């Protein structure tokens, strides 16, 4: 005797969160049944593996039918096919759009193209995330990217409204979209120590300070939060004077050193490296007009600034102290006229470096 057809449909769709997670994680039905058995779900129920299998199948089918709706979460709320209590809808959406940080690290900054998708099996093998799950996550990134690409207005808000995500998740997606759009390089070996959350933080900084939307100008320009502001990038070139003008450079150095003296053990290294470090930061700024250089923003930060400091054994406190004084001292320079651009630049650089300065 074999079961040829077996369905169980309820009026108020209930979904087992555990099974949902297994489905999202790309488990096959059989594997999911195994996991559930090991999880002891049968304890206390007079049920067999068969029953569990049938239940798992039912739920998987329900998820598959829901998946189409999850692609445009707004539909989920007013579709008629499944009667799902609102708080369950929230859970379904949030979990569907959740992603594995190991996975997202692999594709962060890559073009969300078919080519990348083809390589997902490598990513899957590398990260241990099932291919199915990789595809779902990748498709989610791509879907969000495509939708917000054409929308005006603030990025995070758009994501939240169109995908009904929580604020945290919407911000993460904004970071992913931002990275994908600007194609920041994140895969180099030197960057491996950075987590997705580090990048997400930096992306948040860049979005809120360096884009068109950052000016609080809500003219609802397309891509206002996705592209860096061109004018600002042009202005950054002016900062070069800080390293090209010898006097200015010396003056800056002495101001910083005066302020730091006696406050840190790494003072000697700071003093010795000042010119190199300053050149590094200002050069990064000056090169940002070039799209290609923008991609290397993070790798440059690490190579030109973080690594030298790390080899000099700066502590995080040293770093904060140094950057604070480095930024502030520039205001005292008489001949340096680009205070506004400088602050806008250094504000972001400082918080990014502080975030990125760890092992």
């Amino acid at each position: 005797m074999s079961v040829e057809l077996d369905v169980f449909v309820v009026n108020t769709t209930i979904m087992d969160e555990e099974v949902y997670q297994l489905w999202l994680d790309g488990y096959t039905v059989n594997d999911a049944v195994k996991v559930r058995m090991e999880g002891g779900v049968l304890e206390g129920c007079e049920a067999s593996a068969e029953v569990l299998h049938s239940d798992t199948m039912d739920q998987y089918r329900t998820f598959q039918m829901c998946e189409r709706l999850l692609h445009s979460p707004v539909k989920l709320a007013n579709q008629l096919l499944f009667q799902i209590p609102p708080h369950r809808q929230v859970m379904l959406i949030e979990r569907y759009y959740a992603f594995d940080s190991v996975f997202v690290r692999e594709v962060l900054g890559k073009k969300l193209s078919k080519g990348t998708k083809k390589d997902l099996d490598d990513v899957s093998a590398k990260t241990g995330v099932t291919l199915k799950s990789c595809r779902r996550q990748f498709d989610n990134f791509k879907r969000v990217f495509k939708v917000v690409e054409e929308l005006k207005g603030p990025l995070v808000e758009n994501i939240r409204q169109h995908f009904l995500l929580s604020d945290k998740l919407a911000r993460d997606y904004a970071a992913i979209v931002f990275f994908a759009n600007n194609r920041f390089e994140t895969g180099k070996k030197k960057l491996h120590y950075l987590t997705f959350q580090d990048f997400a933080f930096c992306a948040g900084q860049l979005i809120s300070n360096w884009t068109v939307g950052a000016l609080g100008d809500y003219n609802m320009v397309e891509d206002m939060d996705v592209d860096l502001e061109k004018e600002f990038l042009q202005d950054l070139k002016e900062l070069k004077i800080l390293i090209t003008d010898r006097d200015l450079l010396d003056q800056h150095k002495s101001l910083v050193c005066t302020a730091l003296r006696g406050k840190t053990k790494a003072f000697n290294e700071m003093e010795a490296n000042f010119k190199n470090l300053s050149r590094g930061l200002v050069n990064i700024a000056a090169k940002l007009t070039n799209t290609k250089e923008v991609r290397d923003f993070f790798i440059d930060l690490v190579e030109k600034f973080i690594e030298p400091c790390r080899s000099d054994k700066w502590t995080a406190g040293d770093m904060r102290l140094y950057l604070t004084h480095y930024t502030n001292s520039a205001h005292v320079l008489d001949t340096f006229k680009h205070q506004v651009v400088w602050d806008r630049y250094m504000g972001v650089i400082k918080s990014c470096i502080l975030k990125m300065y760890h092992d």
Partner: protein
Amino acid sequence: MPGKLKAKIVAGRHLPVMDRASDLTDAFVEVKFGNTTFKTDVYPKSLNPQWNSEWFKFEVDDEDLQDEPLQITVLDHDTYSANDAIGKVYIDIDPLLSSEAATVISGWFPIYDTIHGIRGEINVLVKVDLFNDLNRFRQSSCGVKFFCTTSIPRCYRAALVHGFVEELVVNEDPEYQWIDRIRTPRASNEARQRLISLMSGELQRKIGLKVLEMGGNAVVGYLQCFDLEGESGLVVRAIGTACTLDKLIPGSASNTNTHPNTAPASNACNSPSKEIKEPVFSEDPTHPLSVPPTPLRTLPSSSSPPPFSPSKLCSRQSSSSDTDLSLTPKMGMGSGISVGKEAGPLKTLLRQQAQSALEQREFPFFTLTCFPPGFLVHIGGVVSARSVKLLDRIHNPALGNTRSYKLLDWNSVAADEPETRDAWWEEIRQEIKSHAKALGCHAVVGYSESTTIWYITHTILRPTSISSEEVCILSASGTAAMLNPRFMREGCLDAGGSDQRLSRQPPLGMVGSERAEGEVSSSWLGFDDASPPSCGFCHIPYDEFNMPFPAQLTYCYHCRRQKVPDVLFTTIDLPAEAAVTGKGCLIQARLCRTKKKAQGEVNATAISNLLPFMEYELHTQLMNKLKLRCMNALFGLRIQISVGENMLLGLASATGVYLSALPAPGGIQIAGKTPSDLSYDQHISTMQKRINDTIAMNKELYNIHPPECIEEVVGSPIPDRQRSRLFRSTSESSDELSELDLSHGKKDAFVLEIDDTDAVEDIQSLLTDAPMPAGFYSCNTEVMPGIYNWTSGLQMFTSVRVYRLNNANLTNQGLNKIFTDLCENLLKSLYFKLRSMIPCCLCHLNFTVAVPEEELIQVAVTAVAMSFDKETQLAADKALNKGSGENEEQLQFSMELCGESTSSNNQPTAKPSGLPESAMTHSSSRDRCSTWLELLRLKAHTIRRGSVKTTSSSERCSPLPEVRSRSLRSTRSLPCGAPVTVVKMTPLSFLPRTRIVKYLGIINMFFIRETTSLREEGGVSGFLHSFIAEVFAMVRAHVAALGGNAVVSYSMKECVFMENPNKNQAQCLINVSGDAVIFVRESDQEAIPPLITCGQTSTTGADGTT
């Protein structure tokens, strides 16, 4: 032009992409009613079009309003080629025709396509302006309310219960039309859906006419079914109970309709030309049932005509009905027991026509399963009849070689066809009626009819040729009962002044010419004699000395005055006033029998030969299982027999309970016939031990501790009868003696002799029923006896399984085992899936089995899981066990159940006759009949008795002790405020902790879904899963559009699934029905979550419900 239908198409959303190039759709809508069609403008390039159309107005007859659905078709405009259909919405506008139902239909409807399923949604507004039509010869019956609910709907009061109404219409099935070979599957499915919609509209209208004729204004317990008879056509039939209902609104005028029963129209009683009658049912002179009904000794006027079938009628009415009849082809409930079965069709017809006006006697049948208190006087037992028919094209001359292609040519198609079908049913009903008579009863309650059709299904997907060898089993069953005639005559449920709360209106509403009769009938019943109402219905209605079947009678354990049977079987719900010990549980008997493959008449004969044996076996199983659970009565009994090519399946489901008024069930004893062998004895005693252990365990499980019952000694098969501490009477002791005898292997004991293999099998099957997991209860009735404190948490579900038997050469035993396992596994699966609802009860757990193809068994179940409050329950149980106090809680519960008037226990109206009636019990039919004849007899008549009993409530229920809080479950109810209206669905007639404030109309929908890409849709399971989900969605959308928030009495009456995996095709037909309602939560209670304490809370809660 008595009506103007107005429709407005507002908008669409989530439409599918119809133009690949632009990924958009240019949608427009056609709105069609009858032959008139309107179109909206094309809304270009959008998946969310805003048409905002003008109001499309259709001026139509109200007859059409009732028959026709409003048909809305969404299309994609295509400049160069034909427009593509996106999908359709059929809207039944019947709810708008009754002033008390919905006034507007407005909302989002899923756009449905039979090939693609739901494709987006459309927002529609529909209104109807009805002009008054005073023409009494009209063909329409607008305004008659229909309810699927099989009790008096809550918020109404039954002024009068007129009785049985039935009707059927027949048409050619478009699926089998010639044209089907050239049209697309979509066109064919749509033709079918539309036809069925039309036919049900017409059927409802015709039934409505009959109701008006009888003077009623509503049909309760409306049961409509489709018989897809393949080539022979398509039959849509319905039965129901005509009533005059008054809306329970403070201050509302009471209804003034004073025409009591008018007989239903009648005209023909044709005998089918080629039917094969079950031999069993043939009149057997020696059969106990054929004994002329004995007048009840004690009822002086028992010989007077039963109140329901008064031949007197208002002549005015009947004449008009005649006219109607002649206009409408068909139908007929003719009647009469007097009509001999032998009479030729013609003769019968003539005779009936002659008699029609005068002698129309309605069948005293009631499709209700739950009654106002006092309505049921006594219950005799289950009566059922089955008949095997051969569906032959000969019966359908209109469908012969010259086929008519007109879909709805009623006159030509209907000419002969309904006569035959009517005659078939007529015959069955007569049989039921005579069975009831044999039980000393004048009425049948909980009545239902069903058919099982077997046809060669593998050709079903787009058949090119189909054989006409279809066999059809017609079944009818009900519970023989004596009813209180007042309900039929006077219309006052509360005549006795019983119910203070509900009967706000003086019972005098109906005064009239019938008065006199009313009086007669009440005196007839001897109403002055007092007998506790709560046990009255268990008392036997038949003559003790002339029992229709062997039975053991004892004096009622409650009143000690009347006789009650030892076991009572019924098809109704547990009466509210019944006193029950412990809890109930679902009891199922399952059976498989192999049958030789055959065709035509040979096949029909084979089937009808098997039927009686199957019924007997099922009955035996039920009885054994009942004993095993230490229970003595079955409610909601439903026996279904399905036919396959090479086997018959029988499934009987019922809810077992221990009625306190009936004697405690005896144990089950096993006896071997050849006690010589020592190891054999050993074996027997092991079995015996297992059985006794099981019984003891079940007592614990179901909390059955009859106060007067001394625990049985394990190992002793002899039930202790010494329990009656209070009322020991001499008769009791004699009873005891007989029971003792039983243990010695006498015939009426529950002795299983295990030296025949059947018995071994029986015992095995007895013991293989897995116990329910902790926290679960189950029943197939409206509610579970013994559970009172429901929370509002509920979950309705439908589960369908199809099994393939891989081994073609199975024996009966093998098949039985498989079938039993299959049902048990399904149950286990349900328990597992619903574990989050614990503690909960699966209510209305009714299985439907079918054999869609050789080696395939399909089981479908729709039920509701309702959670209850554990703590309150525990407290209640405890109180029950102590036998203390008041039955306050029970009372409340029952109010909720019986919906209508409240059930106060000492309701005068409810008084059954207290006369010393003869009582007898149906003897244990369970004994193994040694002779084949006896067996046949028992089986054939299927008359089972059961009696129900009620104990005085004072004995058992106690007020709730304090209880902490309603369970957390209340929080599980859906938060409202969701963008889409939450619509609850339940097969029950009520929602716990809520009050139904309005009935919006009946929901009766038929859908077909087909696919030619089965694999791509997830195989058969994926296909059916999404189809069922779609059906739910469409039901919910219709209810929401009517302004409702729940469907009660929901049922899936048909689920026909066919597949052809080789062609990657599948097709499924589903028919669902229910009542759309608006409910309100029992306000404060519900709103304040878990902190309210104490029993008082739930008490008041329940109160408000009624």
